[in-house]
């Protein structure tokens, strides 16, 4: 790993100021960025650690939403949303492995927008709001393609606010070596509305399967989806599975999610 200047601010304001430096890079839990830097795929001049910012940590009720600080680890989210939002707790509690969950954070995962990460599906599937140091962005506008988000240079995800669905579930088909989803879906049911977010499958990153959402609004059952299909054209195709396989998994995992909830 190439050396860098390490700074560890204790407030969001100081972190934003530090990120104005040339070739400055924010790092939260570092469970993606550290291996990336070791492989020399990233070599920042200044590394701005976000781990000492107390105002970015914790889980609390915010009206009828759940506010989760961007610097909150997966382990903490899993523990502290177990009662209030079990589907999100289950998602957080199955990311990577226990050591990854001790360090990795929700803000880091959302900001990185890995096409196979779990949190983007949870945030998009719940219709969450991404809070940054300067604005609030709806999840529908935030995720803009593989590793692409609405974040500007030097902008930090300080929190994520989740509306709590009546019922929701995260169904993950795991790629056993990496422990990332090969394909996973987050299905959330809010009154008359249904949201289906898919991760791991598309080369455009996390996406909403709107056809399935429409079908499930009228008939919340696995059968409602059985006649639908997802185009394999934009699906990721690699040694772990073809595009057609991932397209099929999208449907199967959606059906499993709905069956488990219905």
């Amino acid at each position, binding site marked *: 790993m190439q*050396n860098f200047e390490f700074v*560890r601010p204790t407030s969001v304001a100081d972190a934003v100021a530090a990120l104005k430096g040339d070739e400055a890079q924010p790092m939260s839990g570092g469970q993606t960025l550290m291996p990336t830097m070791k492989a020399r795929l990233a070599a920042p001049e200044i590394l701005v650690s976000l781990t000492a910012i107390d105002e970015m940590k914790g889980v609390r009720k915010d009206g009828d939403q759940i506010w989760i600080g961007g610097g909150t680890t997966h382990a903490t989210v899993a523990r502290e949303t177990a009662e209030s939002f079990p589907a999100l707790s289950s998602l957080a509690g199955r990311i990577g492995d226990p*050591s990854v969950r001790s360090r990795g954070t929700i803000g880091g995962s959302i900001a990185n927008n890995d096409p196979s990460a779990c949190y983007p599906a949870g945030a998009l599937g719940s219709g969450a709001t991404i809070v940054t140091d300067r604005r609030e962005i709806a999840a529908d506008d935030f995720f803009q393609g593989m590793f692409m988000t609405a974040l500007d240079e030097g902008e930090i995800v300080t929190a994520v606010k989740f509306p709590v669905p009546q019922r929701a579930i995260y169904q993950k088909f795991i790629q056993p070596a990496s422990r990332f989803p090969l394909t996973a879906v987050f299905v959330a049911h809010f009154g008359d509305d249904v949201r289906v977010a898919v991760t791991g499958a598309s080369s455009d990153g996390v996406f909403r399967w709107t056809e399935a959402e429409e079908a499930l609004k009228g008939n919340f059952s696995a059968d409602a989806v059985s006649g639908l299909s997802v185009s394999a054209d934009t699906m990721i195709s690699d040694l772990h599975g073809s595009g057609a396989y991932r397209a099929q998994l999208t449907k199967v995992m959606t059906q499993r999610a709905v069956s488990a909830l219905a």
Partner: protein
Amino acid sequence: MNSIKLRVNGKEVTGQVEGRTLLVDFLRKDLRLTGTHVGCDTTQCGACVVHVNGEPVKACAMLAAEADGAEVATIEGQANADGSLSVVQQAFQDHHGLQCGFCTPGMVMAATALLKENPKPSEAEIREYLDGNICRCTGYHNIVKSIMAASGQDVPAMAAE
């Protein structure tokens, strides 16, 4: 260089580290605590698991500078004050939970973290918790047995595989 001050196995230590210095390198090279192993250096094998503020962490995926002010526990600090093995260490010895021993420090630290969080885990919960710890000898079955025994549960009751 960054000045850091932390507690390692209950003792206060200080150091001067580069930004890029990994926690595992600080432990092994600066403090000469070589019990924490580096198996893969790519954050996959879990041989370098230590506890930071009570939680399991891969020491190759954390900067030493991030440990400033933290409480770190390594395999060297697991034995009892009189030098006898900890419950988990003793169970690994009794149930042949190690073959070559390279992954063992990470396995013991992971197992200890598990039992703190879940004192009577099921066999399935143990296997799931060890997701991030790889044993190249593939000695998982005895590792799981050891952890069952360390939690005071009946080992012979486990199904043979």
